[in-house]
């Protein structure tokens, strides 16, 4: 099990989720991906992406400065 990180700060919708989808191709079952993003729709988008693709969103927290941190388990 490996933990990967993705810095999607500054990227506009739908790019953060697009980057997640690209990284997902190299993930092994059990791998974690931590994402930082500040696109406004990201918290909702990543939740729906996980539901649709069958991956687990462990958490997604928006900090005071509008930056969201999410963690997905594959």
């Amino acid at each position: 099990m490996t933990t990967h990180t993705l810095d999607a700060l500054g990227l506009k919708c739908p790019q953060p989720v697009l980057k997640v989808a690209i990284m997902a191709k190299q993930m092994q079952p059990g791998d974690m991906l931590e994402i930082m993003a500040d696109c406004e729709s990201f918290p909702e988008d990543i939740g729906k992406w996980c539901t649709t693709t069958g991956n687990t969103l462990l958490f997604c927290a928006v900090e005071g400065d509008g930056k969201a941190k999410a963690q997905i388990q594959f």
Partner: protein
Amino acid sequence: MRSFPPPGILVPLKECEKMMTAIICNGTENKNLFPTFIMGSAAIALGHEVYLFFTPAGAPALKKGFLEQVEGKGMPEMMEMVNDFLTLDGHIVACELCMDVYDMTEEDLRESVEVVGATGFLSDINDATITFTF
């Protein structure tokens, strides 16, 4: 008659048949190109098979070097989105009629573009459940 999967058995979404989205781009302005690539990228990120079809009115945007010039305030970076779309095996197709309309050859188009006829395209997107036109 037996059904598959048997009733009550949940099939993980990952194993379901791939969804397909087809998007028609009908112009070369930002209002045509951004929604085409934004919706196309979102669909491919969700695991859909995605076809972006450029009609003769939209096809000049597929000439080499055109998309590199496209930018919009508050919009995602166009070329990064195009490259990510292609990384996930998205299809960018141009209507074959545009070749004569604009005296273009396939050499004038980006390398990633497939040139197709209307019948071939309709056959390719036969399973599309989501379509947009921009």
